[in-house]
């Protein structure tokens, strides 16, 4: 079968033939076709099944407002469900499948739903599947989802790239129909920066689908010439295939450019789509209007479509929907459709004009004052039944019916910032209201200027006015003489009748459903929408909302504007999640930060763990080690026996300088810093203003007016932000400057009894790091490896004799390699975050598990550190009664009564003989690890009044894993409680 409904003319390239497949069958079309136009040209009207009743459906429209012709495009990983055939550009090799049926499209097993339709009225699901309740999840929902879903995803990763981009302009013109082109010519010639965006792949809007002339030129030729001139202007950016999807705050617009959807696959290195953010000084909405249907019984058969769509398919695409066409109209446009189709050699069965004063014609039969009351044809229209003014009816054979119910200005984007449209009684339609988004003007049919002459003039005038606002003077261009007929219309939204008349074809909502909703008390339009689903899903009711409102208005006895209109929200047409994600997917979901020793660690085969954005080495497996515990235990024992090295660069580092630096630190830390000597380090506990611990770290005083503060890895950004807040907003006159130096310094911990000996091999001889000269909690600026500037801090997280050595980041990799090389004689072992964690639990140091956003200094056992003699963030509210109860949680240690037993962090602590319930809860375990030093599990946790309960036996209850262990309350300092090792 080859294009039996292909007719003359159109903007398609007949020199080239494209082959494509629909439901496995091969067809031919031409460049310039859409999937819908090519299928129609091949005599295919049936393109899908409806959502609820599985009624056979074909296209209703020729644009992005399409509710019915929804298909799965492409195959395999590039399959795209719920694509509109009416805007899918044809390419050679395109494959598409119809959706929403079981079995063949022409014999859908679920079409039984249509026969059962009396049971499927509005609210059916809410009313029917109520009980038994247990049936919902297992039985009802899966069946309903299978029967009612539209397309499905491939389930495979998307192989294509999606990009994001940013654009700026003086004037964004949305829509390139007559108004948009006239505006763009006016603005472009003035020299202003202009962006002209249109969702279509050929610019020109309705000019490409109509037969009237602009001066001597056809609409398409005039549009092509205008586009050619605009393309020659360096200050104009033309964006075809680009949908402006939303109007956001302050003149910012979102737009989706379909770069490669019209190609078999994107060219190498180019994205499929680009999501643009466009910053505009002014915008001009020239989005045109969408024709609306009239509802009547069985108005959803394939072959019934909008009159404007019939004209588009005939004039732009050279495709007939059927050889014999009837027209149903309430305005003069139905007659234009008849004339256009006659000129294409098609037969006009009749023009059924609901107006008694319909224009007469000698070229075709006009049935004035008549309406379509029913149709026939199971898989495609065969005939319509017409109700004549004399009460009789008449059957008219036809394969296509063009319905023209008037036009709805495309006010969508005018409503994205709370704007409400206002009612125009002459058009019987909503037009843009007064409250437009910042900087937006509207012209052309979108503004209710329905003739081409008016559209051209209003586009040009609006551009002049927009640019005048910006101080750019533009002059009105000479515009061509063209069509200027008024829209003569007598409102008609539905033909009364007993059968089902569809308002919303995508959601299968009929006039009856709206009436039922009204009977059941759904008076508000917003409730109507949610109860019936009118106006939902991919088309968002572009062809159905006004019809639904009109029926509702009729029921309530109010006018349409009194009944209201639902809000329009972005996006204008559906946008894939991939476009919103852009390149932020998979490993690129967010940036990855690598430590200075990362490449060295990767060479060693380290196992890495994500810590915020950082990748840190978790442990370093060696040959023969089969479990992570073997590696971690070895790293811990080797460090405690001789020396271990760990990359601690990820800790936040903040440089604090200024004559008031000490005073500043005094105010942000709960404990005192004023008297910290130069060359000394002190632990600091930072509270939030509500008295809860925020972060902790060490602060080193390198000079009178120079400190280096560290934060935990996780809180580095938040703490820095907080310090800037304190500095700028609370104490603006303190002489203090801060800067984050986290990424400026590579920092390694060197811990263990031989830490000093290892360091002495690289610290330059001028610097004495003996215990006497460089004691515990000392610090200094030194040089290493023959002159490399470095900072040395004698601090310990592991509990061993330990130093942290910092060098400029670019030397970090070399320093790690040097430490490992020089450490061979001490069997130096590099350890990861797991061993780090085990050692700090053995030492009883609090970390993120303990500073968990609920703990106070008192809970942590540091209540005495909160100075009462000074003002510091959080000190006042830390004194609140509720935070200082006698049985407040205290951080203590736990060990299993039977050393063979394990227990889990998160377990709750319950008295030995008490029932395990919330009332008997005594606290919880925060950190648990196996201690290779002690040979059994150990834990840290918060216990009510824990400081006074050493020796008590409790149960660590883990209801998640249904486990419990007897534990003994012990000191949190499992290793070296006197601190002799770290002072060695």
């Amino acid at each position: 079968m080859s294009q039996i409904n292909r007719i003359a003319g159109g903007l398609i390239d007949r020199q080239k033939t494209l082959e494509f497949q629909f439901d496995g069958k091969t067809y031919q079309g031409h460049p310039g076709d859409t999937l819908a136009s090519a299928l129609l040209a091949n005599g295919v009207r049936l393109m899908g099944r409806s959502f609820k009743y599985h009624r056979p459906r074909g296209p209703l429209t020729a644009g992005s407002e399409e509710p019915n012709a929804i298909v799965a495009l492409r195959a395999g990983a590039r399959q795209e469900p719920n694509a509109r055939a009416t805007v899918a550009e044809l390419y050679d090799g395109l494959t598409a499948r119809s959706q929403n049926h079981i079995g063949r499209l022409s014999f859908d097993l679920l079409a039984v739903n249509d026969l059962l339709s009396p049971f499927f009225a509005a609210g059916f699901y809410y009313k029917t599947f109520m009980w038994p309740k247990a049936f919902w999840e297992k039985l009802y929902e899966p069946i309903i989802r299978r029967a009612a879903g539209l397309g499905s995803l491939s389930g495979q990763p998307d192989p294509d790239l999606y990009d994001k981009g940013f654009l700026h302009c003086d004037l964004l013109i949305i829509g390139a129909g007559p108004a948009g082109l006239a505006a763009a010519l006016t603005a472009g010639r003035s020299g202003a920066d202009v962006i002209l965006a249109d969702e279509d792949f050929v610019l020109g809007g309705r000019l490409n689908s109509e037969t009237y002339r602009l001066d001597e030129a056809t609409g398409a030729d005039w549009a092509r010439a205008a586009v050619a001139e605009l393309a020659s202007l360096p200050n104009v950016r033309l964006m075809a295939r680009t949908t402006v999807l939303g109007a956001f705050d302050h003149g910012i617009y979102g737009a989706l450019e379909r770069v490669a959807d019209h190609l078999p696959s994107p060219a190498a290195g180019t994205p499929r789509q680009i999501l643009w953010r466009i910053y505009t000084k002014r915008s001009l909405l020239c989005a045109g209007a969408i024709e609306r249907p009239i509802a009547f019984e069985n108005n959803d058969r394939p072959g019934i479509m909008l009159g404007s769509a019939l004209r588009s398919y005939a004039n732009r695409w050279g495709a007939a929907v059927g050889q014999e066409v009837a027209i149903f109209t309430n305005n003069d446009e139905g007659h234009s459709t008849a004339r256009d189709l006659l000129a294409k050699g098609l037969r006009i069965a009749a023009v059924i004009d609901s107006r008694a004063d319909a224009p007469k014609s000698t070229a075709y039969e006009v049935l004035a004052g008549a309406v379509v009351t029913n149709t026939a044809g199971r898989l495609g229209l065969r005939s319509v039944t017409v109700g004549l003014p004399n009460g009789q009816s008449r059957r008219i054979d036809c394969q296509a019916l063009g319905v023209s119910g008037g036009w709805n200005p495309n006010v969508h984007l005018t409503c994205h910032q709370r704007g409400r449209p206002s009612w125009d009684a002459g058009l019987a339609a909503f037009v843009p209201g007064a409250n437009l988004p910042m900087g937006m003007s509207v012209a052309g049919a979108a503004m209710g200027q329905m003739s081409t002459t008016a559209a051209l003039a209003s586009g040009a005038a609006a551009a002049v006015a927009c640019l005048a606002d910006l101080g750019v003077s533009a002059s009105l261009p000479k515009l061509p003489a063209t069509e200027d007929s008024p829209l003569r219309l007598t409102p008609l939204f539905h033909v009364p009748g007993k059968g089902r008349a569809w308002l919303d074809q995508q959601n299968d909502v009929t006039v009856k459903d709206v009436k039922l909703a009204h009977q059941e008390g759904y008076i508000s339009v917003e409730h109507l929408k949610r109860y019936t689903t009118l106006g939902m899903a991919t088309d968002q009711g572009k062809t159905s909302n006004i019809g639904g409102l009109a029926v509702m208005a009729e029921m309530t006895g109010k006018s349409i504007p009194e009944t209201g209109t639902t809000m329009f929200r972005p996006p204008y047409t559906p946008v894939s999640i991939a476009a919103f994600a852009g390149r932020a997917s998979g490993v690129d979901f967010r940036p990855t930060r690598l430590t200075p020793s990362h490449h060295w660690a990767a060479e060693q085969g380290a196992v890495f763990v994500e810590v915020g954005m950082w990748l840190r080495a978790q442990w370093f497996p060696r040959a023969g080690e089969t479990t992570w515990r073997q590696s971690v235990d070895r790293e811990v024992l080797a460090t405690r026996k001789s020396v271990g090295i760990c990359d601690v660069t990820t800790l936040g580092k903040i440089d604090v300088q200024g004559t008031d630096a000490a005073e500043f630190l005094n105010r942000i830390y709960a404990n005192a810093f004023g008297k910290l000597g130069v060359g000394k380090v002190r632990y600091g506990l930072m509270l939030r203003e509500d008295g809860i611990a925020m972060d902790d770290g060490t602060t080193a005083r390198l000079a009178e007016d120079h400190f280096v503060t560290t934060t935990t890895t996780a809180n580095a950004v938040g703490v820095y932000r907080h310090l800037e807040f304190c500095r700028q907003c609370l104490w603006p006159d303190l002489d203090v400057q801060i800067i984050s130096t986290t990424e400026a310094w590579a920092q390694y911990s060197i811990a263990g009894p031989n830490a000093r000996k290892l360091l002495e091999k690289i610290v330059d001889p001028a610097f004495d790091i003996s215990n006497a000269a460089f004691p515990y909690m000392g610090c200094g600026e030194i040089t290493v490896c023959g002159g490399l500037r470095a900072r040395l801090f004698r601090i310990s997280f592991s509990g061993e004799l330990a130093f942290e050595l910092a060098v400029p980041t670019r030397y970090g990799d070399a320093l790690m390699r040097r430490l490992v090389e020089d450490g061979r004689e001490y069997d130096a072992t590099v350890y990861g975050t797991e061993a780090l964690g085990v050692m700090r639990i053995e030492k009883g140091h609090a970390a993120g598990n303990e500073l968990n956003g609920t703990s106070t200094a008192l809970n942590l056992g540091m209540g005495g550190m909160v100075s009462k003699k000074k003002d510091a963030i959080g000190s006042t509210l830390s004194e609140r009664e509720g935070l200082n109860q006698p049985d407040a949680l205290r951080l203590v240690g736990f060990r299993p009564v039977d050393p063979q037993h394990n227990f889990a962090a998160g377990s709750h602590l319950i008295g030995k003989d008490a029932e395990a319930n919330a009332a008997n809860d005594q606290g919880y375990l925060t950190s648990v690890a196996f201690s290779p030093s002690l040979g059994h599990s150990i834990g840290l946790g918060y216990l009510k009044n824990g400081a006074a309960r050493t020796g008590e036996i409790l149960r660590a209850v883990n209801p998640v894993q249904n486990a419990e262990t007897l534990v003994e309350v012990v000191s949190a300092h499992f290793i070296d409680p006197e601190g002799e090792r770290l002072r060695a």
Partner: protein
Amino acid sequence: MIINHPLLGPRDSQEFTYLGDASLIERPDWQAADAVDQFYDYLYLRDNPAGLHRELWYHEQGDRSWLVVTRNTLTHDITSVELARDVAKAKGRST
């Protein structure tokens, strides 16, 4: 949204981090007799106006300035942007 930074000109709000009510600048005196009550009010009791709101934004992806932005919560119109440091000084917060 676009925030017209007093030092850097118009910047996209994505560059900023939002904190909340600019009254957070007015931290109470810790030595007042009713300091705990004052801090409680300061920290927990906020107005939630439908209309003009003075609020703190931090230019985290920029110059690290804290700003006081006056924004209409209904329309997102921004009528004034000041450096928080200047606002704090004007309120008598010196050191």
